[in-house]
């Protein structure tokens, strides 16, 4: 008989990284389901592609780096990265898009920086930005929500479209996006941006069918589903309230000011909150622990920065949605934020950096 030596504490909360990641994936399920309902089964195929690519890349790089492949794969962080990227790109985008994006996210953004915990940027968002600037057309080719689609698309159509660029019945993506008049339909954010630049007022633009109720046909429900997932994560204490609240709060605040000043050229705050990737970003992307700020105050600043940047880019930038850029820009500031928002240690007078 011999006794085992271990360092204290001898007790651990039974909540490991892998479990946290699984909870994040679980919380995303309602959002994905709603997305699949409104924007086609393509999203599921994208998800599958992304996950396979992510796991393969992760395993390959870990093996090359001489790490314990199995143990590290089982932390499920690659899974979450794949998931976030897959739901962010259009459902019927060609297969190579998501493969390139995921491979870039895992190999370059995550592993080349030292693996989980060492990456400066959120891998999914960095990959999204790469794809967006490299392949702007497929990356913005969102189909209109299901009720507006002229052709109903089966799962088989989704497979065909993703792998051949044409649906089983031979329609191309751009054809699928057309409405009854043969005019290509864009996302609500895109439409609004285009219309505003052409001199329409917000109110006039909002009359278009893509907007549906409040913030866009389908998009509202997708956002609502991610909000639910986010609340679940909060309840499970997987994420803390500070970042999502700061993101949403600052986006709301900025858009409210802008909307009050000039309602004709600015979307309403509620539209901003429930359109595009707002909820996904606030609860799932900005809260990625690795690339977010780690201090309490820092998290508020970090979240507010994302919200503010998102609003600015949405309103004045060249891209319809902005969270990927906002998150990446905020990621860059994290070391600085962390440094200057160090909490006051017990028994010390001054706080932060000395």
């Amino acid at each position, binding site marked *: 008989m011999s*006794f085992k030596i271990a*360092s204290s504490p*001898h007790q651990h*909360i039974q909540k490991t990284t892998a479990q946290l990641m699984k909870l994040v994936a679980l919380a995303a399920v309602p959002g994905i389901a709603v997305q699949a309902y409104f924007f086609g089964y393509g999203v599921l195929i994208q998800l599958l592609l992304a996950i396979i690519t992510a796991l393969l890349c992760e395993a390959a790089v870990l093996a090359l780096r001489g790490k314990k492949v199995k143990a590290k794969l089982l932390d499920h962080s690659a899974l979450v990265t794949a998931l976030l990227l897959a739901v962010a790109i259009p459902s019927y985008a060609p297969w190579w898009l998501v493969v390139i994006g995921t491979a870039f996210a895992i190999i370059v953004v995550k592993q080349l920086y030292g693996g989980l915990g060492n990456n400066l940027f959120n891998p999914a968002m960095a990959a999204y930005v790469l794809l967006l600037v490299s392949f702007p057309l497929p990356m913005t080719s969102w189909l209109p929500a299901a009720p507006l689609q002229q052709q109903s698309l089966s799962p088989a159509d989704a497979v065909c479209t993703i792998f051949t660029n044409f649906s089983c019945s031979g329609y191309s993506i751009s054809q699928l996006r057309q409405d009854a008049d043969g005019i290509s339909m864009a996302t609500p954010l895109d439409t609004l941006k285009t219309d505003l630049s052409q001199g329409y007022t917000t109110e006039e633009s909002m009359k278009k069918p893509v907007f549906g109720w409040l913030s866009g046909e389908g998009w509202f429900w997708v956002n609502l589903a991610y909000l639910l997932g986010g609340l679940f994560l909060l309840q499970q204490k997987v994420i803390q309230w500070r970042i999502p609240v700061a993101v949403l709060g600052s986006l709301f605040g900025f858009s409210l000011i802008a909307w009050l000043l000039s309602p004709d050229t600015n979307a309403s705050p509620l539209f901003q909150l429930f359109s595009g990737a707002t909820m996904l970003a606030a609860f799932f992307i900005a809260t990625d*622990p690795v690339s977010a700020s780690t201090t309490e105050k820092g998290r508020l600043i970090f979240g507010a920065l994302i919200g503010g940047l998102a609003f600015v880019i949405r309103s004045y930038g060249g891209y319809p949605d902005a969270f990927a850029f906002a998150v990446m820009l905020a990621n860059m500031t994290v070391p600085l934020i962390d440094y200057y928002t160090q*909490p006051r240690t017990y028994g010390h*007078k001054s706080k932060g950096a000395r």
Partner: protein
Amino acid sequence: MPTLFQQIQAGKVWDFHGGIHPPSRKERTNQKPVALLDIPDRLYIPLRQHIGVAGKVLVKVGDRVLKGQALTQAENAMAVPVHAPTSGMVLAIDLHTSTHPSSLAEPTLVLAPDGMDEWRPRKPLDPEQVDVYTLLERIQESGISGMGGAGFPTHIKVNVKQPVDYLIINAVECEPYITADDMLMQERASDIIAGIEILVKLLSPKAVLIGIEDDKPIAAASLKAAIGQKDNYFVREVPTKYPSGGEKQLIQLLTNKEVPAGRRPLDIGIVMQNVGTAFAIAQAVLDDIPLIHRVVTVAGETLAQQQNVLALIGTPISDLLNACGFQAEPQQRIIIGGPMMGFAIADWSVPVVKTTNCVLAPTENELGAASDEMDCIRCGACADACPASLLPQQLLWYSKAKDQDKLAEYNLSDCIECGACAYVCPSEIPLVHYYRVAKADIRETQREALKAEQAKARFDARTERLEREKQERLERNQQLAAQRVAQQQASGQATQSAAAVQQALERTQQQSGQSLDKEQIIAERERKKAEALAYQQQKQQAQIATPAEDQAPGTAEDPRKAAIAAALARAKAKKQAEAQPEAVEQTAPAEIAPDMDAKKAAVAAAIARAKAKKQAEAQPEAVEQPTPADTAVPEVDAKKAAVAAAIARAKAKKLAEAQPEAVEQSVPAEIAPPEVDAKKAAVAAAIARAKAKKLAEQAEAPLQTEAKATTERALPPERQEPATTPEQDAKKAAIAAAIARAKAKKQQNSEPL
């Protein structure tokens, strides 16, 4: 705005940052009465069980001691004694594995109880009747040190000069499992309050705050009942949260004050004591029972009986566990203390000490061991849990990088090692362990820095001293030289010697200006190497020669002489290879000097030979020739002669490196200087040699003749009247030698090779 005191009176309790809520599992043991154990077969009483130093041991192995008898005595303020927990026999005072995470062995007294449990006479005190100093003395003599965990001597903590606002009694016991204090409060509340009253007498605080977690309603009720109507005693129930029992956290909870970093609670007018300590004080003062037992929680699912026991200090953990029905698992962990801050032990013979409040023997299911450390995902859960508002992941980063500056910047020293960060870490990183290692490294670095500073100071002081001494010697030397010249001229007898001195001085002056020729030095070294090779070939001869040496110490009577002789033997053996057979053979007889000075002669001879040893490396004949002189000196003067010879040879050794014959001839001159003239001759010779040595390094041949000439001139008087050296002559010879050395050294310094 109510004042702080008003707020406290009103029952306000504050909060501290972070904290965690691990499963407490206290219900297993907090409803059973404290059990008494049989006296164990052996008690292992570590001599030091507190922070500070051990006392002086008062008993011997084999003594019978009575229960409560002091085994050690405090010799300074930081010491507290230990006492015999029961009567019995002192079996041993030896090293035994300590009840410490390191498992290092510490001096421990082993007691074999005789089962009589016989008390020494006891003298209870009435705290109302005695003064503060008597109380403090009693507290120290009773071996009381903080029983909450750190083990700081209580008499120091309660001996305060500053005014104390609040005496906080820590009854929080926030670690899971542990109910030792809880049970003590439930069973002995009135004793605890009596102890607190003694503390109040010592500290005279404005108020007594008793902090207790709200999961101990019975204990809190017992305390309140025991307090009765006393003024300014407040029992404050704090929410159950780990680590609210930490000193700093409890202060924050009860008074909303923070202890400034690097200061003590006393600096903000607060003294904190554990309930266990208060109880021990009551027992020590009122019943004269020193700290010889304590309540220990024994818990864990491998035990049939999880309970609190009153264990004698020194009881081996194995006895404790076996008494509770211990069934070990294959990978069993035994933890002293709670699951958050306790430490695992490798050897269960370690004893219960004054700070042992809990022994855990959990199953693997119950307290799963941490799985492999994963990468930090920067989730910040640790920072949220940290009661000191630190940034544990930054600290982890810098701990791994061993960046001590950054660690200081991020206030590693404020970490209380509570383990909350490691508890919540999803990657199961043993954060606290990293911090402990880093802290130990920092302490080591500080120690090293301090030592470096001291070493530097000592080095500088030494350098300065050497410099000063050199200067002094130089001055003295010049004075003496002047005197001598005057004397010599007056006497007119020793013109030859004077001439020699003159010559020597001239030579020094000549050479001091010259620089050394590198080629010559190299050639010199080559020559030495060749010689060394030659000696190695003579190894065998040398080995045969050693027996002669071994006989030498035979005449020496006292052990010291024997030791010296032995040392000599070793010295020879050490360099036997290089040493020359003849040297050994010839020097040995010196030790057989018959009369009372034999001892000293031997010492001298030893020194001489030690030098000869090295000398031999360079020059065989040098040793060969001088040694007969030793044997020839039969009487009182033998000693002095020998000393002189030794000194001479010491010089010869160095000289020899450069110039063989010079030594050969000059040494006899110094051994037996008969008269005034002889003395001067010796002086001259010494000076000459010192110089010759240097000179030789430059130019070998001319010097040889010069030195020869010098010594030859000096020799004749010596041969006329041998072995009648008066005492002062030897002394002067020694002085001369010193002067010679000083000069040689000075030269060395000014012309380093």
